[in-house]
C-alpha cells in the first residue's frame, strides 16, 4: 500500500494532528499509522526473533495494545522512535520468555543471547519504508520472482519450474530487481 506511505510522508508521521486523531479513535488514521510502520517494524523485530510469523505477531500485539489504550496515547515528539522502542522491548520480552522456557529443556545450550542490534535511527526507518515502496514498484513478474525468492525462500530452480520459466530468466529477473532497487534507492547511500 504505497499510497498510504506517500500520504504519510506528506502528513508527517509525527504530526500532532495525526496522533490526536488516533487518540480520538479515528480508525482510518490508525490504519495509516499501521500501514506506514508495520512493515519496517516487522523487519526490525525479525532481527531479534528470527521468525517472520513471530515478528508479525509481536507487531500486531503492539498495535492492538496501542489501540486499546488509544485515549491515553501520549503526545510523542517522534512516533517512530516510540514505536521502535516499544517494539524492541516486546521483542526482548519475547526472547526472555523463550529462554526461560528453554531452561526447562534438557538441551538448553546456555549460549550467549544474540547481540542486541539496538533501536534504528531515523534515516534507517525511512530507508525501510522506501525499500518496501521500491519492491512494490518492481514490474509485476519481476516482483513476483523476487518475493518468491527472498520471502518464500524458494530456489531459482523451484521458481523456474513452478512458473514455467527457464532458470536463466529467473536469474535475469533477479538481476533486474537488484538493478532497479539500486537505481531507486541509491540516494540513500552516504
Amino acid at each position, binding site marked *: 500500500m504505497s499510497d498510504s506511505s506517500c500520504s504519510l510522508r506528506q502528513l508527517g508521521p509525527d504530526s500532532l494532528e495525526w496522533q490526536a486523531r488516533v487518540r480520538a479513535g479515528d480508525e482510518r488514521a490508525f*490504519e495509516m499509522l499501521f500501514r506506514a510502520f508495520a512493515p519496517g517494524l516487522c523487519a526490525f523485530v525479525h532481527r531479534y526473533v528470527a521468525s517472520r510469523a513471530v*515478528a508479525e505477531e509481536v507487531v500486531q500485539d503492539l498495535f492492538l495494545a496501542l489501540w486499546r489504550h488509544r485515549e491515553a496515547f501520549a503526545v510523542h515528539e517522534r512516533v517512530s522512535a516510540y514505536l521502535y522502542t516499544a517494539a524492541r522491548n516486546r521483542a526482548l520480552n519475547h526472547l526472555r520468555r523463550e529462554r526461560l522456557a528453554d531452561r526447562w529443556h534438557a538441551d538448553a545450550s546456555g549460549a550467549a543471547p544474540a547481540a542486541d542490534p539496538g533501536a534504528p535511527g531515523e534515516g534507517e526507518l525511512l530507508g525501510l519504508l522506501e525499500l518496501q515502496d521500491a519492491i512494490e514498484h518492481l514490474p509485476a513478474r519481476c516482483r513476483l520472482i523476487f518475493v518468491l525468492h527472498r520471502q518464500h525462500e524458494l530456489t531459482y530452480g523451484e521458481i523456474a519450474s513452478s512458473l514455467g520459466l527457464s532458470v536463466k530468466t529467473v536469474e535475469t529477473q533477479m538481476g533486474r530487481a537488484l538493478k532497479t532497487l539500486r537505481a531507486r534507492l541509491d540516494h540513500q547511500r552516504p
Partner: protein
Amino acid sequence: MPRVCEVYAARIVAAVRCRAAAHPGPETIVVDGDAHDRTSRADEQGAPRAGEPDWPLLARWLAGECGAAERAAVERWAATPSRRAELAALRAWWEQSAALPSAAATDAMWLRLSSRMHEADDAHSAGGRAAPQPAPPPGVRDARGRRPRSRPRVLALVPGRSARSPWRRRATLAAVLSVAATAAGLAYAAQRRPAGADPVAPPPMREYVTKPGQRATIDLVDGSRVTLGVASTLRVRPYGASAPGARELFLEGEAVFDVAHDERRPFLVHAGGAVTEDLGTRFGVRAYAGDGVVRVVVAEGQVALRAAAAPPGSGALLAAGDVGRIDSAGRALVEQGADTTAHLGWTGGRLVFRDATVAEVAAQLGRWYDVRVEVAPAVAGRRVTVNMPAGSLSAVLRAVTVPLDTRFAYDREGRTVHVGP
C-alpha cells in the same frame, strides 16, 4: 545449475580478457547481454558499458548460489572502495528484503488486527444487545491457533518462514500459486470442468471459491494479482507464463484485478454476460447472480467492456475513474469521474453503499457476514448511503437502521437478522 555457472564463468572470463586487451587496467565485469531483458538489449550491440556490474551475477552472489570462479569474479569487481560500499549497500537491501512483509502480507496483518481491535472494542462496550457473532468459517485459526470472530477476511498468500523441508517448500509454492489460508480448507483450488463442457475440450480450469465472509488474494502465474471478494468464484484457464493466446478468467461475484500487462496476450475477464479486457490496469468487476447488471470500476489504466455477444473491439472504453455497467440486454452505461475508492473500498475492509436500497444492503451484508438478513417490505425499498469500516455486524446494522428509524433483531439461533419495525 553447475552447467549454468560454468557458462557464466566462461563468458565472464572471455569478456574480461577482451576488455583487458583493449584497456589494460583494473578488470571489470561487463554487461552480459541478455535476450530476455529488453533494457539491456541496446548494450549487447556495442561495447559493454564500463564498470556496470553483471546484475544477475550479483544477485546470485548475494543469494549464495555462485561457484568459486564467480565469487572470485565478484571480488575482483569489488576492488575499489566505492564498489565495496555499493556491494555493502546491495547486501543490506538484500537482507532486509527478506524480512519486510509484502503488501499482501501487510493487508492480511491489517485485517487480522482490525478484527481483533473490534473484538476488543465490542468486549469493552458495556450493555447493549449481546448480539451473537456470525459463526466463524470452519477451520480458520489465526497465528495463535485461536478461532477468530468472523469478519470478512482476506487470505493472503504469505505463509510464514517455513522449515527448509522439501514438503514445506512445495506447500509454500502451492500456497502462492493457488489459494491457501494459514489454516486449510477454506477457499480451495480445484480442477473442475465447467458445467456442460465438451469432453474433449481444452484442459480443465482451475477454480477458486470464497464463501460468504471470506476473501482471498490470488497471485497468478503471469504476475497479475486478483483480490477475490466474498461469496465469489473465479475460474482461470491455466496458461503458462509464455504460452500464446489470451489469458481468460471467469468470474461470478466480485474481484479486483491488478494486471501484469502483456500486449501479446490479452487479459479477459468474463462475468455475467460481459467481457472486460485489460489494457494495462487495475480494475474491479462485480457480477453477482442476483445483481442483474455487471459493474466494472477502473482504478488505473483502461479497460474495454462489452457484452459477451458483441464482437471484440466493440463496446465501451473505460478509463481511470469510470464506472461501466452492462445489463442483461447488453446495454452499456458509463459514468465518469466516479469515486473508485468507494467501489473498491471493500478490498481495504470498508463497506460502501451509495444510495442503495435496504434490500441491496441486506444482500451484501448477508454475504459479508454469512448470515441471513431479512428485510420487512416497508423498509426494503428505502435508500441508504453508508461508508464505514466493516466492523461488527451489529455496528453496521445500527448505522443503517438508526437513520431510517427502524430496528433489527436476531432470531433465537443468531443465524438470521430481521430488519424492520
